[in-house]
């Protein structure tokens, strides 16, 4: 397992918000983490990034990246891993970019922070932009001059440029139009097959998960109530909560 979460507990004081017995993402695998607001899926993301403490939560248990324990690592070490080994994209890409800097400057700064020289960084970012089907010319724009879909792809390009092995995608398409969402999903699939990237895809939308993910874990009130291969869960959910979620997804045609 490239990313392996075992016995993870995240709590605010006495209140436990995440209790995950086991959740793993293999090399070149896309795993969906499904759940509604408040189910703890975003707190799980923050815990993996080592950022749960920044919102006042305490983390116990084990999160391993390629066998290396992340829980308890000093902030100095985590800073080196965050971005370069584990990258994250979020629902609102405009929040991920400082509005007063050109997106290219944000990208270059991140790469240089991780030890690349100026020209290496420029080359990698340009290449990564083409890899997400964007013209490197867009790097000269400010965040407000890009659409939501373009910005989300720049955020993904940044993860690609840093050669991140694990991508945490927290509702990355929920704010996008459906045709743009289709493009971003295709891009994630390609990153998985081309670069062998592992993706933990967090979403409330089971239909998106059904199309994208190899495996899915369904989260309710901080715990995973069911997980398994996507097709199996979608066609024969064992937990009533999963079944309820599945019934709720609007479909153009209901078949069978």
């Amino acid at each position, binding site marked *: 397992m490239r990313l392996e979460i075992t016995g993870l507990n995240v709590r605010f004081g006495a209140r436990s918000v995440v209790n995950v017995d086991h959740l793993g993402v293999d090399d070149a695998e896309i795993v969906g983490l499904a759940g*509604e*607001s408040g189910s703890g899926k975003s707190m799980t993301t923050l815990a993996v990034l080592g950022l749960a403490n920044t919102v006042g939560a305490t983390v116990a248990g084990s999160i391993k990246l390629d066998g290396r324990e992340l829980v308890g690592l000093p902030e100095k070490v985590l800073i080196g891993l965050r971005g370069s080994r584990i990258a994250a994209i979020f629902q609102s890409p405009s929040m991920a970019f400082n509005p007063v800097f050109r997106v290219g400057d944000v990208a270059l700064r991140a790469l240089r922070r991780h030890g690349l020289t100026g020209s290496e960084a420029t080359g990698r970012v340009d290449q990564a932009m*083409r890899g997400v*089907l*964007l*013209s490197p*010319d*867009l790097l000269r724009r400010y965040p407000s*001059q*890009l*659409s*939501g*879909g*373009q910005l989300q792809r720049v955020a993904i390009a940044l993860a690609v440029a840093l050669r991140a092995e694990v991508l945490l995608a927290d509702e990355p398409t929920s704010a996008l*139009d*459906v*045709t*743009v*969402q*289709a*493009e971003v*999903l*295709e891009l994630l699939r390609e990153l998985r097959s081309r670069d062998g990237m592992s993706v933990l895809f967090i979403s*409330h*939308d*089971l*239909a*998106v998960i*059904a*199309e994208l993910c190899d495996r899915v874990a369904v989260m309710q009130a901080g715990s995973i109530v069911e997980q398994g291969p996507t*097709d199996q869960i*979608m066609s024969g959910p064992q937990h009533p909560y999963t079944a*309820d*979620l*599945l*019934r*709720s*997804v*609007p*479909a*153009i*045609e*209901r*078949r*069978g």
Partner: protein
Amino acid sequence: MAALAALLEIAGLEVRFGPVRAVDGVSLDVAPGPFGLGLVGESGSGKSTIGRAVLRLVPAAAGQIRFDGADVAGLRGRELRDYRRAVQIVFQDPDNTLDPRMRVGPAIAEALAAHGIVPRREAGPRLRDLLEEVGLDPDFASRYPHQLSGGQRQRVAIARALSVQPRLLVLDEPTSALDVRAQARILELIGRLRGERSLAYLLITHNLAVVSELCEQIAVLYLGRVAESGPTAELLAAPAHPYTRALRSAVPEIAASARSTRIVLHGEPPDATNPPSGCVFHPRCPLAIERCVVESPSLRAIAPGRLVACHRAEEVLAGVALSGAEQSDTVQPGAPQPAPPPKG
């Protein structure tokens, strides 16, 4: 269209924000209830602006909106007041609809009192009925909005809209901010109310799956214009516009068998301040030919009750392939793209 006179007729509507034509010559009819017209499109398609124009929240630069045969722009005084009662809107985000300092009961009673239906003090029994009708515990009347979930708040917004017995509802993305189970229950509620109250509504959404069960007719909008319109079942089964096909194929489906071949549109929705020449969809269209670049297609009948604005609609309707290799000679993925359209 329907033999009955339309309840709402929109003819040649144009709405401009400065140089931007947010709505550019849209004509639509809504039959008397129970009837649903789905306005489907992506950000910047003008769907919400049409809804706002119907409520006179934004002025029309050209065209007409007629309700019960009367020109809405000409309504004054008593007539305008009646119109504002007859047409109600439910917004996407119930948090911004309800005053956080006002309990649910008074928030609804205010609407009743404002339209002189029931004096504020005597609104109690009516409130309880309304809350029950939208599936809420009548005791919720004493709660504040923050004590309710998103779905419950949206029910309150619907109860308040219904309280004045409207004849037409504008539902602007009523479930987009909600969790999937709450969304399903709100859609169920809309389906139930349309029958019980014989409601007519404009359902504005980006999600084709949401309209498929609740609307008799669909209009697909692109950059302020109608790309295609017609009866829901026929339009979804066999789209006549390449954009509708792409939109339809982009809707994620749980069942693998329900998924159609994904048609990925490259490039962003175009810039409304500088719309493309010819057909506004041509820069993203996998079927674009020379003619599409120079000549804007007019909205024309292609089948009974169905209108489409596409030079190649016959081929699309016949099922010509839109995906795969044939795309490569007509579009350039990754080509420099125009600036994004304004939000909203």
